[in-house]
């Protein structure tokens, strides 16, 4: 039987109260949102926080998905399920509609939150890769007020972000909707973490790729952005040969480890294939 180590339990009823509790209890306190990453880690004693600050009562403040003059704003406590059910996301951010059904299962998606998925910083998690492609920024609040962190500056290592221990993520913002986007993933079985996954978000102009961002999951010690592959694609006309070259570049940019999901050469090969699949899907959606 897996049982977490003893901890003290606090419930925050406002964001301000959560920040105050974080300040009072110091770095050994952890925020608990949906709990579907933290509780399993606590059961395995991979995490043993002295204090757990439950923030599920912040739904009123932090559970929303809205369009704010072209900027997508997702509250940190929006559930995976909310993303799947949002007409706004389905219409303009198909990369998220592609990724979500592959994340765990419907029961986990009822509990798991967007803020949790992004701040947990599991390099194999899907949403970080999708949001890297979307070029989002995350909003965090702490004792010194609010600040935003570009997603490119968020991840520094496995399970490690630039969010300070006293801060809480409140929102994810995508300043500009892509013209089209897509997410492709290879998983061993339904709901598994990615063996490799790749998301693209792009803008076309007169038949050429004007701008593109690519996020990769499961193929490095953090979520990765495939910058060299983006350069290969920019300014070019879409096509199989171009995708092959971009896939080659992306395969060179990742650094997968060997585990039950495959060897590094296998995962690099997946990246080559996924580049073609995701690009094809995204370009098709620009039509």
């Amino acid at each position: 039987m897996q049982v977490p180590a003893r901890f003290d339990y606090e419930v925050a009823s406002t964001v301000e109260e959560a920040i105050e509790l974080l300040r009072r209890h110091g770095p050994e306190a952890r925020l608990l949102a949906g709990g579907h990453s933290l509780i399993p880690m606590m059961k395995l004693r991979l995490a043993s926080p002295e204090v757990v600050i439950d923030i599920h009562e912040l739904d009123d403040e932090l559970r929303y998905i809205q369009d704010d003059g072209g900027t997508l704003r997702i509250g940190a406590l929006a559930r995976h399920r909310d993303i799947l059910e949002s007409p706004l996301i389905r219409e303009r951010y198909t990369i998220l509609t592609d990724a979500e059904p592959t994340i765990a299962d419907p029961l986990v998606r009822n509990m798991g939150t967007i803020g949790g998925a992004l701040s947990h910083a599991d390099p194999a998690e899907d949403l970080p890769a999708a949001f890297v492609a979307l070029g989002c920024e995350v909003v965090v609040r702490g004792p010194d007020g609010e600040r935003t962190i570009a997603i490119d500056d968020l991840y520094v290592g496995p399970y490690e972000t630039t969010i300070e221990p006293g801060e809480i993520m409140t929102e994810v913002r995508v300043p500009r909707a892509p013209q089209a986007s897509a997410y492709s993933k290879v998983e061993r079985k339904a709901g598994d973490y990615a063996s490799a996954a790749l998301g693209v978000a792009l803008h076309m102009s007169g038949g050429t790729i004007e701008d593109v961002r690519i996020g990769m999951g499961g193929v490095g010690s953090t979520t990765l952005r495939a910058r060299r592959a983006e350069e290969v694609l920019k300014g070019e006309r879409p096509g199989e040969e171009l995708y092959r070259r971009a896939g080659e570049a992306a395969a060179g940019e990742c650094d997968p480890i060997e585990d039950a999901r495959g060897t590094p050469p296998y995962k690099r090969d997946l990246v080559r294939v996924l580049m073609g699949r995701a690009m094809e899907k995204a370009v098709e959606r620009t039509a």
Partner: protein
Amino acid sequence: MRIEISVNQQPLVAEVEPRLLLVHFIRDVLGLTGTHWGCDTSNCGACTVHLDGEPVKSCTVLAVRANGHEVTTIEGISAGADLSPLQEGFRAEHGLQCGFCTPGMIMTGTAFLKNTPNPSEAEIRTAISGNLCRCTGYENIVKAVRYAAEKSREEVSA
């Protein structure tokens, strides 16, 4: 910590350790052993219960998290001795072999049918993708869900 929870529409008060998981609270404290404790890793779904009407895996929820909320277990699904349409479906379509996954399947299926009264086979299979049947008896589980959907629609139109 003192918690107040409604379980199967019965309000109750209990004193629990914060680290106690909801599945153990339900089984060991309340003695409601219809909720099964399976993989302990949020994979198998045998421990599925409803938290405020939504299916969740109770091995990955703290009992204190349910403070002030409503929990429904398999014991709260039927109306007295009358089986729910989905329970009846499991019986009619032989939807269980060893029966270990059944309570979780029924909790997931019940919530699913409420939101999706006329599901396709693919939708049913996606809905139960977080509930594993070790006997691999999925065919009849899918049939049981479909039976319940049809039965509920007949009742509505009757």
